[in-house]
């Protein structure tokens, strides 16, 4: 627990933590405001169906699913950059070396550091989700879109499921970046790996059958959030297992590297 508290201290006071959160918060606000501001124009230039689909972003409880999908996309990239930076700086600032020289377990140390990242990601996701929900409601109201019922039946289970599944997907992206960043000792490599993975999946989408593609990490993550948004919990099982497998494999990789690597 002491090690975990120390991990939270070093992560919580790191400027990158506040900057990453502020960027995500700004993006969410910007997207809602710009969507609402351009809604009239979209209504005129698009079909009624398209306008109705757009209005759903502001209409609860459907708006929760749209918000979670949007958040996950941005948060995955942010988590990759952030976790990669943390992993890289374990080497560049020598924190891992110091812990090892004090007789700390290498594996416990790196996994605890990642657990800290995971907790911060959860807090950030919950706050962003809450802010996004409020913004969606307020901005939609200003734009004259009926807000629906934010507390509709089923929301009490659907929203936690959405938040947890979204967070878990973000953790997956963070874990992959953390593993790459720690193994290569480079934050840049971590970010490059996740972005490359994203584009590789986009390209593979055109080539590979869906049965294969559903086991790709980002695709599985998108499926998981989609299933949670639709409250289709049975459909969420395979994506959930896939995402969890990537988290486990990435962290096992980190543990293996930490245990074997020459920490000099």
């Amino acid at each position, binding site marked *: 627990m002491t090690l975990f508290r*120390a991990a939270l201290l*070093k992560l919580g006071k790191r400027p990158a933590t506040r900057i990453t959160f502020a960027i995500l918060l700004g993006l969410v606000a910007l997207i809602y405001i710009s969507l609402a501001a351009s809604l009239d124009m979209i209504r005129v230039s698009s079909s009624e169906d398209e306008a109705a689909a757009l209005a759903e972003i502001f209409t609860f409880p459907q708006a929760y699913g749209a918000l979670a999908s949007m958040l996950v996309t941005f948060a995955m990239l942010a988590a990759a950059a952030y976790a990669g930076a943390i992993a890289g*700086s374990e080497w560049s600032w*020598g*924190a891992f070396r110091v812990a090892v*020289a*004090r*007789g700390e*377990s290498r594996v416990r140390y790196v996994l605890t550091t990642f657990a800290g990242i995971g907790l911060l990601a959860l807090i950030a996701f919950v706050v962003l989700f809450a802010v996004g929900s409020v913004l969606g409601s307020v901005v939609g109201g200003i734009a004259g879109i009926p807000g629906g019922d934010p507390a509709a039946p089923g929301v009490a289970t659907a929203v936690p499921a959405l938040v947890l599944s979204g967070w878990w997907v973000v953790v997956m992206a963070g874990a992959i970046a953390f593993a790459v960043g720690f193994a290569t000792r480079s934050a840049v490599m971590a970010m490059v790996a996740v972005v490359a993975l994203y584009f590789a999946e986009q390209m593979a989408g055109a080539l590979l059958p869906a049965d294969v593609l559903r086991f790709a990490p980002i695709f599985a993550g998108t499926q998981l959030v989609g299933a949670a948004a639709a409250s289709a919990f049975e459909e969420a099982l395979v994506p959930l297992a896939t995402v969890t497998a990537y988290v486990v494999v990435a962290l096992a990789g980190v543990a293996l590297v930490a245990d074997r690597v020459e920490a000099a």
Partner: protein
Amino acid sequence: MASTDPAIRIQGLRKTYGSRIALDSLDLDVPQGAVYGFLGPNGAGKTTTMRVLVGLIRPDAGRVELFGETYDRSRRRLLHRVGALIEQPAFLPYLSGRDNLRVVEAAGPAVPAARVDEVLDFVGLADRARDRYGAYSQGMRQRLGIAAALLNDPPLLLLDEPANGLDPAGIADLRRTFRDLAAAGKTVFVSSHILPEIQQLADLVGIIDRGRLVRQGSLRDLLAGSGQLRVQVGAAAVPEATAVLERAVGAGRVRLDGRGPEWLTVAAAPDRAAELNRLLVTSGIDVFGLEAGSDLEQLFLSLTEH
């Protein structure tokens, strides 16, 4: 643990990086309670030895004992009795000195909550404890590194070039710190390039070169066998002076000194300075300069120059 066991015992330690041999069957004994100066030129293997001692790297072969117990990665808890400053101090630049120590103390052995402030006070950083580490001078960083090494009040300290970046006042502080630690009965294993510091502080010295220990012993014993005199005579009198001195101290024990053609180095105990001076003068050779003394630097250079 038997109290007579050495704090560190290294036997046959070997480490290679590709074709480069960093440590070549290194043997070393550091008794408990000693201040041990670990000397060697750049690339001799000092830092590699330190890294092996704290489990940062694995040796290819050999054995390390800490306080009589065999140390390997599976027995990392032995490091709870060790405080280390290896290479540069490693801290997070955005955290204060105090927060950095709180992060460090969370890894490894548990330490009392008040300990962080105690060690900050000990190294003279109490009034700068809330400042960001990134704003610290090199000397302050080094002192924070020493504070971190002291956190768990370890009986054995491994300090790799602790005087790096310190100004003369900082080095004087460091010297006092070493004295205090030695007086408290701690074993201090310190590598340094600043030989006069080691000469002032160390009880024992080990000199490493190309991964091998080339000399180890008490400073007094090592220097007793390395007494030197430097004599300055007129350039024209060098051959005659060499002959006179060799008659007194033995053939082959007089050579030209590197600093100029009129300087001779004589391998002789410093207390023979007056006698040799008299010999030269009575032989009609003017002596323009005479320096007596044993020094670690000369010994170091004689053992490590290739």
